[in-house]
């Protein structure tokens, strides 16, 4: 892993009712081991609470995990909430069960990257570090 002068900060969040947290917890540990400062929201957060936490924690990245198909309603709202707070410098990555079509749409709306099942932690680290 790359040496960093100052570790990047990332907020990992679960929004909505989705309880699938295996992926996000594995990513949290992986990023921590790669030198990131990781904050995990826990389950069942609202879009506004996540945007507020991103601001309060002054993060560089926001990773949101959605495995229940609600990404097309939740992610646009989240991007909007960040915009309203003037937090467009925060890069948003999305993990979960997301069809290729939807991945394209989310990227057009401003998501930096989408990750599905089978993604390696190293590839996420590489992306966030580049």
């Amino acid at each position, binding site marked *: 892993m790359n040496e960093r002068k100052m570790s990047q900060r990332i907020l990992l969040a679960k929004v909505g009712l989705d309880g699938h947290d295996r992926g996000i917890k594995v990513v949290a540990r992986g990023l921590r081991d790669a030198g990131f400062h990781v904050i995990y929201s826990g389950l069942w957060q609202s879009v506004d609470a996540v945007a507020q936490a991103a601001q309060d924690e002054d993060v560089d990245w926001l990773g949101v995990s959605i495995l229940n198909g609600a990404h097309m309603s939740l992610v646009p709202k989240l991007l909007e909430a960040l915009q309203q707070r003037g937090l467009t410098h925060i890069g948003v990555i999305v993990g979960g069960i997301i069809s290729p079509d939807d991945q394209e749409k989310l990227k057009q709306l401003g998501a930096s990257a989408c990750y599905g099942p089978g993604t390696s*932690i190293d590839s996420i680290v590489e992306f966030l570090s580049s």
Partner: protein
Amino acid sequence: MSSVTTNRRTPWTTVSGVPVQPLYTVEDLGNFFPDQELGLPGHFPFTRGIHESMYRGRLWTMRQFAGFGRPVDTNERFHFLLRQGQTGLSTAFDLPTLMGLDSDDPRSVGEVGRLGVAVDTIDDMLALFDGIDLGQVSVSMTINAPAIVIMAFYVAAARQRGVAWNELRGTIQNDILKEFHAQNEFVFPPEPSVRLVVDLIEFCTQQVTQWNTVSISGYHIREAGSTAAQELAFTLADGRHYVEQCLARGMDIDTFAPRLSFFFNSHNDLFEEVAKYRAARSLWAELMRDEYKAKAEASWKLRFHAQTAGCSLQAVQPEVNLMRVAYQALAAVLGGCQSLHTNSMDETLALPSEHAATLSLRTQQVLAHETGVTNTSDPLGGSYFVEHFTQQMKQEARRCFHDIAGQGGMIAAIENGYFRRKIADSAYVYQRSIDVGEKLIVGVNAFQQSGDKIMPVMPFDESTESAQVESLRQVKRDRSWDDVSRSLDEIRRAAAAGQNVFSALLEAADRRVTVQECMDALADSLGRFRPSAGW
């Protein structure tokens, strides 16, 4: 990647990371007494299966989990599946229903009918099973925190249709403990949650006598990242806790134990999975007979449903998932399952399309009718490897029971995060082993190809939510608020008094009280549980 096969650098371990020897012989079985440890199929300790003739006598039930949209949409899929030769139904509810929320709650926005079917009132339950004879078809319902509410709706609907309760056959998952360990769909705190589980068991033991009252589930524990041995151990530990709580309620073990059922994962490592199922049967039989003093043979038998491992499916080269599912299904059948769900190849992308769902059912039909696996019982019995692994699984599970007791028992172990920590540790070890190439996953870290063709996925009908909310509003306009209010008072009274709440919920169902109204009334005295954000 041709070097993968010639220059192997991956360790010789199972999917769960357990070392495997190059050869097993009789030496690996130690003091092995086949008569006692294996017995014959259909006889204690049932290591070789719960029926004498196994699949010759009765094939496993091909039970594909289905549910989406409004009740009418899922009803249509149910009729389609029955026409395709499926032999039992299995209902997936949407996330709001699973969390005890109505379709018109603000927290339900975007989730109504998405992952399963939305059920708000008894009207929805009647629509869901319209045209299906509930006295003939066995029905499984995957729901946990609101299980007792949904079960009350189901039996009330059966009564309205004129089906006698003792003719109803099926299963309700009703397994709240694994929600705390792994699946995260809980509402009330652990102790009152278990009380509701026992309320349902008690009511059905008396009145819905052919119903499987709990499906004690390792599936979700494994999906959350546990090893095979942890799946086995935590599941049986959950089963033991339910048994102990029913006994504490004063129930006779042989009245309720025969209707406890199990649900396990079927992952990629064929022999490890077979050993797990065989160990589960023999360990449960020993616990029931020797520790809990059950006398009826039916109480000793561990019957289980299996589902192939969703977490093993990959988003790249999704058609390859067909092969994964087929091998996993083989493991479940070689392990003696009573019913089986095979996953669809497109589940890493979206809910299954009709094409993908049909192929997954066909996978089971090929297995059942073309491969010959049904010809004889427990075909792997007596294999030095499988018997050694079966023994090892049992020992591992017993060690784990000891660990849980050391944590202060089931509820204390949940509260201190024992299960979640163990599972998250295993999940991380597994992911790292893939990342560093110790384990190879086709298409992911080996045999990659570019230019995957895009698989058409099932679109979601965005009008579902507004239509469901509108029909709920209609019900709320039509019903008598006085009736609803009296029903809710009765639920609160029974819950606060520590009585079995089933009868109060049954009456509420008939008065078209909603799922969320019932759950909120229960929460008034049971309280609510917030999960920790530990990782």
